[in-house]
């Protein structure tokens, strides 16, 4: 099924965005996020971007204070996901201009709109930045 969740977490371990493509109860999410964040945040730059955690493989990438963590199946193409994270960041960059943690925090809905255009049911729908952003731009124009 591919991508099973996307998390954005800051250095302090606070979740800034969570999008799941499979159903987990609130308790399961809390436990999972806690475990993953602990594992990934403890890693350093010299280590690889993949962490195996129980049922998942986590592909993660750090941008300044923010970690992007994507949980995938064990047989997913790791590097493709790693660059998909970067595509997401570039897309947000194009919209916000030098995106930072606060942008995502205070514009949670926009971050969700973008993800909605990029991923559906765990699969990648769109990789063209202008196509991803066009609904948001349309909305801004009308409001």
């Amino acid at each position, binding site marked *: *099924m*591919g991508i*099973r969740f996307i998390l954005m977490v800051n250095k302090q371990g606070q*979740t800034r*965005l969570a*999008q799941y*493509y*499979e*159903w987990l109860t*609130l308790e399961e*999410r*809390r436990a999972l996020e806690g475990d993953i964040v602990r594992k990934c945040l403890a890693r350093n730059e*010299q*280590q*690889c*971007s*993949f*962490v*195996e955690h*129980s*049922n*998942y493989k986590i592909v993660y990438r750090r941008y300044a204070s923010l970690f992007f963590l994507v949980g995938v*199946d*064990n*047989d997913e*193409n*790791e*590097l*493709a996901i*790693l*660059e*998909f994270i*970067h*595509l997401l960041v570039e897309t947000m960059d194009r919209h916000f201009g030098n995106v930072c943690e606060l942008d995502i*925090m*205070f*514009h*949670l*809905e*926009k971050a*969700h*709109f973008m993800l*909605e255009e990029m991923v*559906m*049911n765990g*699969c*990648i*729908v769109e*990789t*063209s*930045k*202008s*196509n991803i952003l*066009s*609904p948001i731009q*349309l*909305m*801004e124009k*009308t*409001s």
Partner: protein
Amino acid sequence: MALSGMRGLSVFISDVRNCQNKEQERLRVDKELGNVRTRFKNEKGLSPYEKKKYVWKMLYIYMLGYDVDFGHMEAVSLISAPKYPEKQVGYIVTACLLNENHDFLRLAINTVRNDIIGRNETFQCLALTLVGNIGGREFAESLAADVQKLLISSSCRPLVRKKAALCLLRLYRKNPDVVNVDGWADRMAQLLDERDLGVLTSSMSLLVALVSNNHEAYWSCLPKCVKTLERLARNQDIPQEYTYYGIPSPWLQVKTMRALQYFPTVEDPNTRRSLFEVLQRILMGTDVVKNVNKNNASHAVLFEALALVMHLDAEKEMMSQCVALLGKFIAVREPNIRYLGLENMTRMLMVTDVQDIIKRHQAQIITSLKDPDISIRRRALDLLYGMCDVSNAKDIVEELLQYLSSADFAMREELSLKAAILAEKFAPDLSWYVDVILQLIDKAGDFVSDDIWFRVVQFVTNNEDLQSYAAAKAREYLNKPAIHETMVKVSAYILGEYGHLLARRPGYSPKELFTIIHEKHPTVSTSTIPILLSSYAKILMHTQPPEPELQNQIWTIFNKYESCIDVEIQQRAAEYFALSRKGASLMDILAEMPKFPERQSALIRKAEDAEVDTAEQSAIKLRAQQQMSTALVVTDQRPPNGMPAQPSIGPLSLVKVPSETVDSQNPGDQGLTHPNGVVYKEDPQPPSQDIIGDLLGTLSIEGPPGAVAQSPQSATYEAEGAPSAADAAALVPVGEESGSVQPIGNINERFYALCLKDSGVLYEDPNIQIGIKAEWRAHQGRLVLFLGNKNTASLGSVQALILPPTHLKMELSLVPETIPPRAQVQCPLEVMNLRPSRDVAVLDFSYKFGPTMVNVKLRLPAVLNKFLQPITVSPEEFFPQWRSLSGPPLKLQEVVRGVRPLPLPEMANLFNTYRLTVCPGLDPNPNNLVASTTFYSETTRAMLCLVRIETDPADRTQLRMTVASGDPTLTFELKEFIKEQLVSIPTAPQRPQGPAAPPPPVAQITAPPPAASQDPGALLAGLL
């Protein structure tokens, strides 16, 4: 902030952000939740804008980890809002908060459907995304047709169609019937001609899901995938927006190659050539560049190409390129590439013929075992485990042991289990095996499960050569000041049993052994004391002549424990005390433990389970759920508890019976895992043995006499349905059900093809492919079964039983119970031919996919002609032989009618493919054919066989055949065998031309034909 225009939301978010601790956060959130609740209650005053704001707040709160169930209704109700901004929030937040089982979601089906079939594109997109993310079965039933229409509609814009594709994927997973529409596969193939890369990307994901379940139906998509790949690789018609750091959509490339991995082969030569060209280009043309993103993207494509090449496993040269690349990758500095190199090399182990090349990288892989990154270490461990065999087991296991002391706690258990298994599987000699296990216990006792030390005891018990060695080793370890309790157990046990073998060495007198064991006594727990007591009793027994001082010491201990609160200890103490006063009879009672019956290592079984538990479980679990929903449709008729009403077990029961009998004699495997950790209920002696000896033999190690009464226990064991019987039964309903999993290709044709060649596919269905590779040498053969899981979910309950005919001795190595996703396991099968016979061995194979059991019975191509060796004989050798075999039963003649008409050269070819060497020129009559071969079996040894065929040019449907050999059975069997081939000729590597012969397949055995009443040998000789 101004943009989103939701000031209240921003204020709340920054309030939460400013909270100093979790408690403050909770207070602030509670306050907000109260606020939202009241606002929702007095809904009248709530403007759409406010409602939207509150719903976003809820999502934010939910993300922080707080329950917001009360607001689900509000979120869902926004879906029916007339304006886009509200509707959008409704859809997105609903998809985040709810799952397919929520009742509210069902309430919204109509609204969602109206949006999907409505004219408003943006509404369509929202609705499709919601259904694509959380739509359930009911959605599948009511929406599938509409979604399909949108996907293939020419009037629909790409932005809608790409969402429709993934929406359909979801619906398909909920109910696979949604694609059971006439011509759907063709539509799917057309979809792949799409120019828009967004639509193509999502359609490719849809295709992957479809082909992973049933690639047969989507053959027509294969060339389209290759075309797409070519288009991307050549960068033709790729808009700039879809080029990522100069690489045409790496994600689509990866997806496309993934789809191709679900097709077993690429048959069309043109498509094949194009595909290999592209792959070659990717393999050769991927350079390391400075830009990280570009580098990652191009390597993402490269790794997928590697996987595809491995899957196709066709071009030898390309395979070695792949191995070379991987070898390079595992040594680079970039950790991601190193990780992926190791991971893919492990996958590569599944491919035949590259193991040796991989072994060359052993040193590098061992270095990775010490990498500072645990992710990489894990990959290295998996790879080392996978690549281990007899040749490198010593090195690898020693590395693992060395690493054990410094390994992370998280890895130690896995590591010690793996080391133990490798040591057992590949031990070059048994003393090494004992060393390894003892070291393992010494270094990581906490992580060594009981199974591991039970196993070493079994080995020592069963191998006399090993016993004194093990005793000496155990003594060495006991000398250490602090040792793990497991070490105390195993050492005490071994010294009790075998310490006396070394009694002459200094330091091994009974007294000394007792002292050194007893020194550990104060530190051990109750689970170890029973073992110590047994050990003391045995030492006492071996002390001849008795030493009163030692005796007193041990008796004091027994006395002390006679009042122990632990019943096991108490009983042992009391019994040993009583027994040890019986003097000489003690000798019999406490005699050495008998050998254990050979059986599968509990360890290896456990490892198989563990493997499922760890690495692959995730995918399996998830997919199992998906499959479950799939299977609901397929297996409705199945009895609910999986037990058939009336199993007709047939040959299965024949095979199962012996193992059941064994089970009832020793409730064996149970004993091993008995919770008190001491009990070996093994009792290899058949019940006919001297009852007393039997009983006491058990007693000596197994305290409670209650347990000695084995029969009732084993009876219940059986009555409750011994697992094996249950298994056998569980296989049976499959027959009725097999409609759900259809074999691909014709099983018979595959079998006949394999009778002629030594490798190929024996069986295939949507889940599994069973390949065979065989080598034959004289009367022996070695077949390797390649069980390849084609799915991305594991196949469980895999069972392979060989039902050999009486003339073949066959031994199948262990077949793992689970085959991981997209993995291939190899199971060697040793064959020995005892005597000539045409009977065929059957492989009874079953597995479970999701809830569906699949069971097939397949003939194995270990047929008579495999034991033939072509041989060319000269006339000087031929004629004396021919003459000396003068008539029945050594020489048999028969007129065969209803033969498939074949030109003579073709018949000669046929003979040659069956390894009957046609000797041209031996028979001067051009209508005749003479052939020779050597047959090998254990009873006949190498035996020359001679065959002569006389054909009638006027009537090709009949011929006269004479077969001669030095063994009557062989002559008969070979004659019948050749006849079968001539009459049916079903094999046809290439189909024989012409209409099928009228099938009177029963060859008539007739009296010698009128034409030749003399001995044909004489006739032949006369001719020359």
